[in-house]
């Protein structure tokens, strides 16, 4: 009881301090630490013995003897270093564990049940590549099925060439006959490569085309102007640098990194949507569907297809598409949502969402934002389960258009507005399989301009994972490192400058002068 009481009295920081201090020691490789001590001790013993060597060896001149002793001493030192290098141990003392494989990568390697071989052709001068090499060695110790070979690409160009490697810092991952090459210095990319290697079938994400949708082949980066002195997103800049339409290039690259295949499909020919489309994405259509095209889509969903609809507020939905969505329990309303409470920066039409509906596609999602979204509604639909995924706050209201008079809307009733929802079930009694559908009243959030920010990419990729029925696959996100900063007042800055530049060196100089005077 007293012990319990005693430990409760300790401040929380004390415990965490102890934990932080002990954690690196617990992770230390004690066997290699023993090697280190042994090698250093052996070298010290050799040197101690070396001091007994006479100035002139019996069989050589004095200079030859000295050369021999120096050469031998240098040689045993080199050998000691080779031994230390071969039995190296690593300690990561950074708070963020920047030199330790990420938790996601460790999880992927731990789960391996098949033998994966990784050959990393790295450049020795590249510090990041060497760090990744050390991390791969750490991962190798987690699972015997993960085998690593580190090869200096400069020393073994023929081997690199025989493996089809043309670039520094390329990792070739092999599982039986399957091969994936990843060019990286990031352990997460290697883990993604392992996931791609483990995938036994191609998962194809089909992007609808033919209605002016966001293109997946455009530049990754958003449209902007670059002036002589500033960077802007409107026409106020003085010089045009890049003028590509907004698109989904960034989403396509993310999909391909995950080992999925991105492909464009068109309904205009009346051909059915291919069965190998694990999910179909309709991102920001600009022209209306014909009833025939809607039928193509309906038949795809009746066969158990999955689709993601990203519909901008200014798009006039075709009646046939509206009817199809209604049979899936979804209504797409007109107007633009305004949220005076939950929005990004100062734009009340840029809806920020931090709380999500309970659904596999929203598990663990952080804050995402939707620039200019239209409201959705849940309709009764037998055999279909509809789940709101994201909604605006209870203070929200809907305006007819962005530029019109908003007085009436502002004073009108306020309520949460659904921005995105998911539906799952059978479209009708004759449907062969259950469809999956995600509809969002906004497409910009997935476009190049907004995809990488906050949790927008997570929202899109998690949605696609659910649609392709891979929602249980590990989520690997890029690391976010934040440097610790110091905020100082002017007075504090003056104080620091006086102490570090004047006081301390001045005191040392004064002590030296006093010593000189005293000795004089």
């Amino acid at each position, binding site marked *: 009881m007293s012990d319990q009481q005693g430990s409760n009295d300790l401040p929380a920081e004390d415990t965490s301090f102890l934990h932080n201090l002990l954690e690196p020691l617990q992770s230390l490789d004690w066997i*290699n630490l023993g090697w*280190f001590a042994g*090698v*250093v001790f052996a*070298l*010290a013993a050799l*040197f101690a013995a*070396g*001091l007994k*060597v006479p*100035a002139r060896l019996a069989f050589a001149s004095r200079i030859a003897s*000295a050369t021999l*002793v120096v050469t031998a*001493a*240098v040689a045993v*030192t*080199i050998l*000691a*270093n080779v031994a*230390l*290098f071969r039995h*190296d*141990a*690593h*300690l*990561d*003392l*950074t*708070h*963020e564990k*920047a*030199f330790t494989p990420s938790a996601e990568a460790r999880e992927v390697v731990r789960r391996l049940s098949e033998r994966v071989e990784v050959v990393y052709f790295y450049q*020795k*001068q590249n*510090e990041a590549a060497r*760090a990744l090499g*050390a991390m791969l060695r750490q991962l190798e110790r987690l699972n015997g099925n993960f085998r690593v070979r580190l090869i*200096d690409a*400069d*020393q073994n160009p023929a081997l690199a060439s025989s493996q089809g490697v043309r670039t520094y810092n390329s990792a070739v991952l092999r599982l039986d006959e399957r091969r994936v090459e990843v060019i990286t210095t990031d352990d997460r990319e290697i883990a993604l490569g392992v996931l791609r290697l483990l995938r036994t079938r191609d998962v194809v994400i089909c992007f609808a085309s033919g209605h002016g949708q966001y293109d997946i082949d455009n530049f990754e980066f958003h449209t902007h102007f670059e002036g002589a002195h500033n960077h802007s997103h409107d026409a106020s800049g003085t010089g045009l640098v890049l003028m590509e339409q907004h698109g989904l290039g960034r989403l396509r690259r993310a999909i391909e990194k995950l080992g999925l295949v991105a492909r464009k499909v068109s309904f205009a020919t009346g051909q059915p949507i291919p069965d190998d489309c694990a999910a179909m994405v309709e991102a920001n259509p600009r022209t209306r569907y014909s009833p025939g095209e809607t039928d193509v889509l309906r038949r795809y969903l009746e066969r158990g297809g999955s689709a993601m609809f990203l519909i901008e507020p200014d798009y006039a939905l075709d009646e046939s598409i509206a009817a199809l969505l209604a049979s899936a329990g979804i209504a797409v309303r007109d107007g633009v949502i305004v949220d005076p409470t939950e929005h990004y920066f100062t734009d009340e039409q840029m809806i920020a969402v931090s709380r999500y509906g309970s659904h596999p596609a929203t598990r663990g999602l952080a804050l995402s934002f939707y620039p200019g979204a239209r409201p959705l509604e849940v309709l009764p639909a037998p055999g279909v389960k509809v789940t709101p995924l994201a909604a605006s706050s209870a203070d929200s209201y809907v305006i007819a258009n962005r530029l019109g008079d908003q007085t009436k809307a502002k004073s009108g009733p306020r309520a949460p507005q659904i921005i995105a929802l998911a539906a799952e079930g059978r479209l009708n009694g004759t449907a062969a399989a259950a469809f999956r559908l995600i509809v969002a009243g906004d497409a910009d959030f997935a476009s190049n301009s907004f995809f990488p920010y906050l949790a927008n990419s997570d929202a899109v990729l998690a949605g696609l994972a659910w649609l392709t029925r891979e929602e249980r696959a590990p989520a690997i996100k890029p690391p976010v490192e934040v440097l*610790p*900063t*110091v*905020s*100082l007042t002017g007075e*504090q*800055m003056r104080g*620091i*400058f006086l*102490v*570090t*530049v004047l006081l*301390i*060196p*001045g005191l*040392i*100089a004064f002590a*030296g002068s006093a*010593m000189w005077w005293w*000795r004089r």
Partner: protein
Amino acid sequence: MRALRILFTKELNATLTSPIGYTVAAVFLLVLGYTFSLTLFVTKVANLQYIFHQMYVLSILLVPVLTMRTFAEERRSETLELLLTAPVRELSVVLAKYAATLTLVLGIFALTLIYAAILGRYGEPDWGPIYAGYLALALHASLLVAVGLLMSSITESQVVAAALSIGAFLMLWFADSVSYLLPPPFDSFAINLSLIGHFKPMVSGSVFLSDIGYFVTASMLALFLTTWGLAQR
């Protein structure tokens, strides 16, 4: 051991009563203080990596000034023969000079702990890389002092000793840059000979035993050669 302690005290007293140590320390801390405060004010980042690199470079230039007189001065004033004929082992003489000079260098480094204290007072720095950085500096200083002693032991001119030391340190610093020209396995050897190659990971918080081993074994080699060289006289 008693002889070692007496010699160490004598060497340390000589070091502390010499104006060289104070001059080196004052210049070192002035340059570092200026760099630290300006870097902190501009970047507002609470880490000491930049300062550690600055200390690395300054050490290469300033440690030879502290080590140049250790044996060269004794040889010039012909007191070395006297010392070596005294009933003390050469190893004790070398270790005493090594420990006294290293104590002075580490003492100067210890004064820079004020920078870490300032960061701790006004921010929340990542302490791991700071601990590792000071470990790297201590190991680096250990190697520089050992090599400095070796250079001082082979000449009676202090200037030549300092020049040889700086030359050796610069060669070790840039050893990896010739690796492109060398065939294997000599290129790996050149890369692993580089001072900065072993120093840099440590100051960023990534501590490899092999990096620690490089500094420890190279220091031991330099001390062995110094001792063996003196014993041959």
